[in-house]
């Protein structure tokens, strides 16, 4: 025993092992140095209730806290609201595959409207360039970059959250941080999400996005009209997705992706209103449901015109 204790080789080995261990431990905890005020939840944030359990007073306090937080982080005055779902309204989206030219305006309008992270890049809409005559999304390409669109040999299918009536993402959430509202919009409580990404795996439409790093938004591009369940700035480690711009649509306006679409391919409205555009489309146009066979009952419908896509066709 005394031999071991005083053995020089063992003594040195233990010493170096201890130093290596210390170095490894330091390296392991060194990311903690980069913790900022944003990453450490405040007392009230940590003990915040689930959205559905908040009283109106709780909600007001939370909205005020978020407003202050945004002001600190972006030096911008924001209005944070929480518009409730409207009675007798069920939102449905229509997208005319015969008219979409794949210009990606919707993608960028969405990013700007929803305060999505610019780096790492988070985009809710993915525009798939599809082979004409095929509905196989596995042969699609969303990185296309020709000098001009549309390519006469292709058609374009933008994919975003389909706000399914039977949403698999809601089913798999272990903490009920995501749920379906009565107007059909599937929402996320960003303060309740634990970032397990089960929902991302469950979604058949690749609609959910994860904040792998602290989202960055240029201060001058911040959209100050925010809502709790949609476009308020997110933090690292939470999921997000398209909410049909509920901060706009629940007060009667149209989503940002629709308003920017130069071709008018995008249609939105209340399907329970028989006079609405989407009700007409569902009743009179040929409609295609993406991955209908998975049984998610989407509220997002692709439709066609009578003669199919006519762009690029010679007029003679």
């Amino acid at each position, binding site marked *: 025993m005394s031999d071991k204790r005083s053995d020089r080789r063992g003594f040195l080995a233990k010493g170096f092992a201890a130093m290596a261990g210390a170095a490894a431990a330091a390296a392991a905890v060194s990311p903690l140095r980069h913790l900022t005020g944003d990453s450490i939840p405040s007392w009230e944030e940590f003990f915040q209730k689930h959205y559905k359990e908040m009283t109106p007073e709780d909600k007001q306090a939370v909205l005020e806290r978020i407003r202050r937080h945004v002001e600190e982080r972006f030096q911008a005055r924001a209005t944070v609201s929480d518009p409730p779902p409207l009675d007798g309204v069920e939102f449905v989206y229509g997208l005319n595959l015969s008219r979409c030219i794949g210009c*990606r305006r919707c993608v960028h*309008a969405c990013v700007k409207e929803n305060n999505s992270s610019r780096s*790492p890049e988070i985009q809710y809409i993915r525009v798939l360039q599809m082979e004409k005559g095929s509905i196989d999304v596995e042969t699609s390409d969303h990185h296309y970059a020709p000098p001009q669109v549309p390519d006469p040999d292709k058609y374009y299918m933008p994919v975003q959250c389909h706000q399914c009536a039977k949403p698999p993402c809601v089913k798999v959430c272990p903490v009920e941080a995501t749920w379906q509202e009565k107007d059909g919009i599937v929402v996320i409580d960003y303060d309740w999400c634990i970032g397990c990404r089960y929902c991302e795996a469950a979604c058949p439409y690749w609609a959910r996005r994860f904040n792998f790093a602290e989202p960055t938004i240029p201060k001058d591009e911040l959209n100050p009209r925010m809502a709790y369940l949609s476009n308020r700035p997110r933090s690292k480690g939470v999921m997000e997705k398209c909410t049909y711009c509920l901060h706009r649509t629940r007060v009667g306006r149209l989503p940002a992706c629709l308003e920017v679409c130069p071709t008018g391919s995008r249609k939105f409205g209340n399907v329970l209103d028989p006079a609405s555009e989407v009700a007409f489309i569902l009743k009179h146009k040929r409609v295609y449901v993406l991955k209908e066979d998975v049984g998610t009952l989407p509220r997002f419908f692709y439709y066609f015109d009578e003669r199919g896509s006519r762009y690029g066709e010679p007029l003679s």
Partner: protein
Amino acid sequence: MESDPREPTANQPAPGHVRGVATATPWISATLLVFAAVLGMGGWTYRPPAPATVRVPAWATDNAPVRRPRLQPTLTSGVYTYRCSDCHRIIPSPSETDRTLTQHREIELRHGINTRCFNCHHRENRDAFVDDYGNEIPWNQPQLLCAKCHGTVYRDWQHGAHGRTNGFWDPRRGEPRRLRCIECHDPHWPPFAPMVPAPGPASPRPRLEAGRGHVGRELRPAPTPLRPPPESPRDVKRPDGKGGQQ
């Protein structure tokens, strides 16, 4: 010298123990120093491989319609603005024959088989369009003119299935603004004009040069030589050569 530390410990364990602690003291401090040094080294910390911040291009979020037609029968030449009838009242148009235009030569008429001016423009009153019965269609109602031929599209447009609607979906909250035909289509050259696409996603693209096929397939060891891209878009249904039996 080497057996120096061994001897006192063998004879007197207690002093040797004390001396061992004393010898370990530089080790402990060195260990703590290394801990602090590694903790202080910024270069070793993980940085997410996110690309630089990409600003949203302003032209890509512009809600303006692609065309801004004047919904009035006017023509601006230099500083003067004329009504169409200002000239056409004085100078009657010659009858339509297959001849080279002497006026309005900037107009490139590529409207399919619709190659006659007076199919749309009123023969007598040039400040109006003409309907199927020779009656006038006011200049600010161009959709009634287009509806003469494009009936199904007009029907869709009336119900909102064709064309742009901006503003509000809920008419109780605000006015929906439905754009008219010529705010997207040039009446003399109607197909929707191609445009430059906005930048694509900056996500990594683990794809082959061919740019086709499922991502998961290409993460597997690729057969060598790589399959050339299909010659025509019709051939891409089975990019990996599989699935023909299904």
